[in-house]
């Protein structure tokens, strides 16, 4: 039976609709022109109707997320989802919540699609096992290839076609959706307790540079026609003058499509009394001038969190800085990872600059289709803070109040204090669903046009944007009402999206067999993740340009 959402105001930026009073018809899991006479009617009077949220970058599954859970029992002790509250599966909360809790919470905010962006190939099987246990949302993983020794070997020899073939193979072997690069070459150097500081710095084991790695992978991805372009975490992240590396990286792309992730963490300069400043305005200008580039922000919000990244050297740096717990997990031949708990404090000058830099990126990048809302969950803040972040963007008075609460020294220096822009609901819909869905190449998501997936969030309009986005009145997933008034009412499972690029660029079978025999500790036959790990697989086609 279908559903008809009536009396609501539809915001569907993909079709240019801004608060249009029209009905939304749903049948068989899709948006349709007419749901029929017997459709259930949802009266959305006083509500705005949007497509379900699409999160382009959130660390929710895989080995390093599980280490973050493991390492911090104190993170789970004070929050839980209980059988008594009517949830199908109990779990614990905190910043690195358990899988079921993660699914419920995303759903309760009106999100219906999430992407885990950093899985080393060896951890793909683990990540997929966790995705099976994340309900309520569609999901996908990106595979980490920025420190792949196999790619490095081919790079040294200039064997482009073999890189194409390998990436195609590894996409299939990991049932992944796209490629993520984290600190290209940096994790490899970290195996010597060193790091990369420049995109033209040579690695120690291999005759190659971050610039070559990035370009080779970006070109291979274009050749394969992957739906989402290269997803890049820059070298030198999180330190003063990181913005220079970000700009150099963007320039190196020479017009190729690129998604720079959590750019906020790369937006620091070394000016000012404390030799730490926000250079977000420069980066915003860079994004405004380069139409090939999209970014997500990775906003920092104050409070306790756990940082999780494949950037091993950065996490060690953070551990030395804070003296807090530290987990490091290097992955053979592939990558690394680190986990460090962190507390963003309003009293800390550096944290305040970070907080402001993220907001500056949001407010200074003109085209909302090229900037997306993330907190790099949980690195900047846990994803449950999104409604608060939305209020910061939409309400300049609220933002000013918050600026008054931060360290006065930082408040005096940040460009944020002169920015008056307020996001509109239409723009929020772009940065949280329509824009992300488009950049991910998900043609059925992020819009409410006929043929789209029936993932819908109905928010009760309010001037307090935080309240409004925290508790949608209805959330519909695949044509079923799954949450009401910000509470899950029905447990459903979404699909896992993956790609299956074309093969046949070169013969690498023997190379791989030799490489696995020599350097891996797993058998190549046991390495690929089969479709049996994806109970609800959804193949997204690649678009190879002729």
């Amino acid at each position, binding site marked *: 039976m279908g559903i008809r959402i009536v009396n609501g105001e539809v915001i569907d930026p993909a079709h240019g609709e801004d608060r249009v009073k029209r009905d939304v018809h749903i049948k068989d899991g899709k948006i349709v022109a007419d749901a029929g006479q017997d459709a259930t009617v949802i009266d959305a009077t006083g509500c705005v109707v949007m497509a379900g949220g699409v999160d382009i970058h959130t660390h929710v599954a895989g080995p390093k997320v599980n280490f973050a859970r493991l*390492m911090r*029992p104190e993170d789970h002790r004070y929050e839980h989802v209980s059988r008594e509250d009517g949830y199908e599966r109990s779990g614990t909360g905190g910043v690195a919540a358990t899988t079921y809790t993660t699914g419920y919470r995303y759903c309760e905010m009106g999100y219906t699609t999430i992407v885990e962006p950093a899985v080393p190939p060896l951890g793909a099987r683990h990540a997929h096992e966790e995705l099976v246990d994340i309900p309520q949302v569609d999901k996908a993983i990106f595979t980490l290839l920025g420190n792949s020794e196999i790619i490095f070997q081919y790079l040294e020899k200039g064997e482009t076609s073999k890189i194409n073939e390998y990436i195609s193979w590894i996409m299939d072997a990991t049932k992944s959706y796209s490629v993520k690069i984290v600190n290209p070459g940096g994790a490899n150097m970290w195996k010597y307790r060193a790091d990369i500081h420049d995109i033209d710095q040579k690695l120690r084991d291999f005759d190659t540079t971050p610039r070559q790695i990035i370009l080779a992978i970006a070109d291979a991805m274009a050749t394969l026609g992957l739906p989402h372009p290269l997803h890049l975490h820059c070298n030198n992240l999180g330190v003063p003058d990181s913005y220079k590396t970000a700009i150099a990286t963007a320039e190196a792309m020479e017009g190729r499509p690129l998604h720079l992730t959590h750019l906020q963490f790369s937006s620091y300069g070394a000016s000012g009394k404390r030799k730490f400043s926000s250079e977000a305005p420069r980066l915003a200008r860079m994004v405004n001038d380069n139409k090939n580039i999209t970014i997500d922000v990775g906003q920092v919000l104050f409070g306790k969190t756990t940082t999780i990244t494949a950037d091993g050297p950065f996490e060690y740096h953070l551990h030395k800085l804070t003296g807090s717990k530290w987990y490091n997990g290097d992955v053979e031949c592939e990558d690394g990872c680190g986990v460090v708990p962190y507390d963003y404090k309003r009293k800390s000058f550096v944290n305040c600059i970070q907080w402001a830099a993220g907001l500056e990126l949001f407010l200074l990048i003109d085209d909302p289709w090229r900037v997306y809302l993330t907190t790099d969950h949980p690195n900047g803040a846990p994803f449950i803070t999104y409604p608060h972040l939305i209020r910061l963007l939409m309400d300049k008075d609220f933002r000013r109040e918050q600026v008054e609460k931060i360290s006065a020294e930082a408040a005096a220096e940040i460009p944020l204090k002169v920015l008056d822009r307020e996001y509109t609901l239409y723009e929020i819909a772009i940065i949280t669903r329509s824009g992300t869905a488009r950049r991910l190449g998900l043609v059925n998501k992020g819009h409410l046009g006929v043929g789209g997936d029936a993932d819908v969030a109905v928010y009760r309009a309010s001037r307090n944007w935080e309240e409004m986005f925290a508790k949608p009145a209805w959330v519909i997933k695949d044509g079923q009402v799954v949450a009401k008034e910000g509470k899950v009412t029905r447990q459903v499972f979404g699909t896992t999206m993956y790609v299956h690029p074309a093969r046949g660029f070169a013969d690498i079978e023997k190379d791989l067999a030799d490489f696995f025999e020599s350097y891996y500790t797993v058998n190549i036959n046991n390495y690929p993740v089969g479709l049996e790990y994806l109970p609800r697989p959804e193949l997204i086609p690649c678009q190879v340009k002729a």
Partner: protein
Amino acid sequence: MITLTLKGKLSIPLEADSVTPDNLHDKSNHQIKEQTVYWGNKKKTIGDFFEVEGERSDRITVVGDCAKVKLLGHKMSFGAVHVKGNTGYNTGSYMTGGAITIDGNTADYLGAMMEGGLIDLKGNAGHFVGGAYKGETAGMTGGEIIVRGNVGHETGSFMRRGLIAVGGNAGDFTGLFMLAGTIVVLGKAGERVGANMSRGSIILMNQARLLPSFLENGVVATPAVEIVLGRVRELGLAPAGGGRYVRHTGDVNAVGRGEILMRVVNRNHLQV
């Protein structure tokens, strides 16, 4: 006065975090009986397990062998809980004020993560007295715990403020990862006292073998010790006064500003 008398013998533990003055002080006798307790995997009421006398009081007396009753006085902030018998795990955990008196013994995590108030235990305690739960990097932040009997391992782990006084012996790792605060052991302390402590004071009335990462730092007779011991006496223990103490500083592998003061038992000590 509210009196709860345990009806029978428990084998499956009871989680009775509803038994605090905060929760019961404004409740009628009937309402008290209706308060939730968890028994194994079942949700039950106080009335299912206890005879309840009295109502509307911030003084609660619990009678019976409550060795299987956990979380008594959990998070309490005022009033008094007097247990005439033993108690189970987590007694007085997270408490911020008021007083708990236990006539018998208790299990692990007595006063864990405590922020304020007073716990007076007549018998023995288990491990982690005034300690931190697994993974926490800050334990007890205030209040006083007096144990007249013995305690187990890891007493006062990650302690940040407050006082723990032990009349009997202590297990290993007393003052583990201690950040500040004071621990006094009148009996014998086990091994590895003060491992990884950054700051804070541990006063031992008997000899103990210390880790290599503590440096002997002279003999002192400090008034600060006498002030602490004075308070310990007020709370009902009887440490000998007026002694001299060998001061050890450490743990050099941590910040190294902690001190272990070991009472000089005989004159020959310094030659040993």
